[in-house]
């Protein structure tokens, strides 16, 4: 007869092995959910706006979609508002990772309606919440231990982000850096497994096309690092301005009578509709324009106008309570800011300079570090997008300066500040970067 201790050990081991398998399956499902979310947004946008939408259609689509989404968000899926990352952090840190199955479902539906309906919001934040929610729901269905259920939240988040951005390493780092808040978390292995499984699924469905087509980068002159440092400082200032305006406006909207909440998304939708009549380029995710900026195919005035309008549009979409993230708008604004700096450097620098696209790329990283406050994710994400290690030095310079400046001027990171406005305070805000005091 087998030794009971050995049997018990063997069963524990088997249970652990099953958990590893589960993280892979969750990675696959999270990846599929991110791909489906992406496809659904594209299909909705195509259906609603058609080939060449008229001004009337540009105005009416976001208004009506937000009206419908507003009803759903108020009556059926109240957790679906906004990005989804603060809610995911809240679930991980305060609710033992327990997320209702209604959350991913609601986020999927309302996210598709809002982003596909023309709101200036991203799909990555909602994807993270959907992935994390799916993982948690599966954990609950499997009747896993509470610790295991909690562990699955960042695993699902990593899987979803990996597929959404096609950046598996950055997705793992994001889960550790932003969701867990600990780069040394023991969940690294599970997050990696889910991320890899997810990206394989996404690539096998959507192909291995990078999110952006970026030309080769080159540091034309050592003095260019000074220009990148300036870009980092500017990126930090823009990040702080973005966060402060967003938080202030959100506070103002929240002070409106509670019964108006159901109509707030529709009002935001109408404002966005009016903006789209003036400038359709700020609609939705906007990666088409980011790609143009990265390839230096955009002029300085266009970049300045688009960057400014995107800030306005994103804040309007977000504070009015629509469902969608700020990842993509952050990259958009960063690309425009960086590209504008690149144009100016090209015009006035007394030394040889690189392409405008390189500045746009570093600008993306700087804004990501300044707004999202995930510097390692930012560096690796840009690296994975470009596959060019030459970009790392200027990227790190700009990222660190942007991060330091934004931390100094706006101590509370955006996601935590949003939770604070909702009356939620996370128990621990551990240091997440080497510059932490």
């Amino acid at each position: 007869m087998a030794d009971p201790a050995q049997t018990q050990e063997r069963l524990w081991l088997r249970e652990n092995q099953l958990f590893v398998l589960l993280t892979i399956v969750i990675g696959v499902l999270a990846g599929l959910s991110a791909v489906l979310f992406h496809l659904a947004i594209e299909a909705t946008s195509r259906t609603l706006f058609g080939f060449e939408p008229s001004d009337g259609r540009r105005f009416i689509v976001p208004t009506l979609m937000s009206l419908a989404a507003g009803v759903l968000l108020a009556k059926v899926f109240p957790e679906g508002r906004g990005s989804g990352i603060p809610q995911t952090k809240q679930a991980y840190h305060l609710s033992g990772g327990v997320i209702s199955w209604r959350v991913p479902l609601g986020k999927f539906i309302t996210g598709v309606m809002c982003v596909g309906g023309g709101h200036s919001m991203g799909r990555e934040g909602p994807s993270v919440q959907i992935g994390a929610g799916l993982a948690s729901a599966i954990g609950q269905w499997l009747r896993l231990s509470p610790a295991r259920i909690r562990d699955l939240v960042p695993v699902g988040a990593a899987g979803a982000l990996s597929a959404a951005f096609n950046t598996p390493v950055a997705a793992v780092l994001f889960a550790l850096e932003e969701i867990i808040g600990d780069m040394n978390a023991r969940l690294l292995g599970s997050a990696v497994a889910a991320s890899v499984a997810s990206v394989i699924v996404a690539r096998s469905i959507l192909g291995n096309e990078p999110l952006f087509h970026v030309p080769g980068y080159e540091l034309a002159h050592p003095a260019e690092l000074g220009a990148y440092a300036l870009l980092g400082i500017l990126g930090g200032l823009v990040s702080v301005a973005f966060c402060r305006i967003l938080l202030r406006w959100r506070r103002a909207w929240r002070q409106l009578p509670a019964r108006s909440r159901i109509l707030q998304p529709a009002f935001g939708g109408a404002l966005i509709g009016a903006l789209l009549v003036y400038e359709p380029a700020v609609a939705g995710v906007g990666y088409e324009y980011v790609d143009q900026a990265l390839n230096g195919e955009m002029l300085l005035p266009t970049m300045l106008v688009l960057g400014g309008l995107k800030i306005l549009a994103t804040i309007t979409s977000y504070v009015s309570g629509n469902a969608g993230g700020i990842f993509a708008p952050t990259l958009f604004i960063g690309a425009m800011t960086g590209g504008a700096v690149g144009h100016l450097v090209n015009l006035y620098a007394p030394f040889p300079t690189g392409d405008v696209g390189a500045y746009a790329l570093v600008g993306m990283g700087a804004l990501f570090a300044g707004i999202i406050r995930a510097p390692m994710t930012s560096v690796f994400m840009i690296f994975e997008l470009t596959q060019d290690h030459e970009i790392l030095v200027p990227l790190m310079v700009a990222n660190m300066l942007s991060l330091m400046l934004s931390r100094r001027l706006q101590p509370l990171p955006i996601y935590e500040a949003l939770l604070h406005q909702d009356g939620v305070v996370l128990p621990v805000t551990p240091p997440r970067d080497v510059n932490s005091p």
Partner: protein
Amino acid sequence: VWEFSSTAERILQLRHVVRRETVRLVILTTVASAAFVGTRALAQRAEHLAVKDAAAWYARGQQLLAEADAEAAAVAFRRATMKHRGEKPYVLALADALVQGGSPDPAIRALAGLREQNPEDVDVNLALARLARSRGDRTEAVRYYQHAIYAPVAEAGSARTLRLELVEFLLESGQPERANSELVAASLNVPDDPSVRLDLADLFLRAGNATRAAEQYQLVLERDPTNLGALEGAVAAAFALADYRRVAQYRLPDTASSDAVAQVAIARAVLSRDPLANRLPAAERRRRLVLNVTYIEERWRECRTARGQSADYPASLIELRAATRRTGIGRDNEALEAGLVTLDRLRQELEQLCDTVTPIDRALAIITRSHDLGV
């Protein structure tokens, strides 16, 4: 939370958990597989729609381009390239629209992106070459032309056409030596097609390689002696080679260009008016000198009178006329050379005075130069 009263119970419960998890994991895997298949089908449909949209945007761009709205066309083409990434005709059209809209830099970047995917693509390299050419970037233009020419998929005919375009560019940008090298390469294995040979010969002539040009013209004339282009080209090539005897032999039809006719006339004048030509009897040498003096006298009178000036001959011409009366002058090479020098100086004066330059004027200049005389 698992709480156990004994090891046996613990094992029992663990077994139950593992079994339950295994079963549910199998169910989950099945669901994931089905979801994968379904999502893949949806993605394929979405891709199909995106390709369709891209084609529609491309057509819209073409329409806008035809309406001369290059900026709007570029926006449409860009949408097409975003919907169907890496589709060559769309990127080429985008680059074209951007260039027409006055934004060559973005056009270069768009093409460079496409070239990164396939560095040896003939169309992309050619588009980049033409773009560099229009910007006056000679080095880049030549580089891209070379890539297009030596692309492994380039057919012999298209490679030759591209090479001839490169030669045109090299000639336009003042690089006849490089053009000549390219032409020599292009002339290898040329099909026996008169139009191809004529193009080649014309370019050889423009590149200053009259010998090769003459060879190609001759090959065309062997097949078709009445080919006007070849006749004119052959005259020009022989003239450039200073083979006046050959030039003079050509019989040009009435439809020939005035340049070719003039070249034949000059060549004939050179042959008939050179007093220092080899193996001429002294009397003929003297006759030619007299002929030239008489011509200059006539031109002098004609041009001076036309300008309302006195038609009196200059002293040098009077002296030369006097010298020609000496019968021995035909045997006096020095006197003949001095006479030619005087005539050449007067001819230059007349060129300033008269509005036209006749074939004989040019013949006299050639004769003087051919004997290393003149001013």
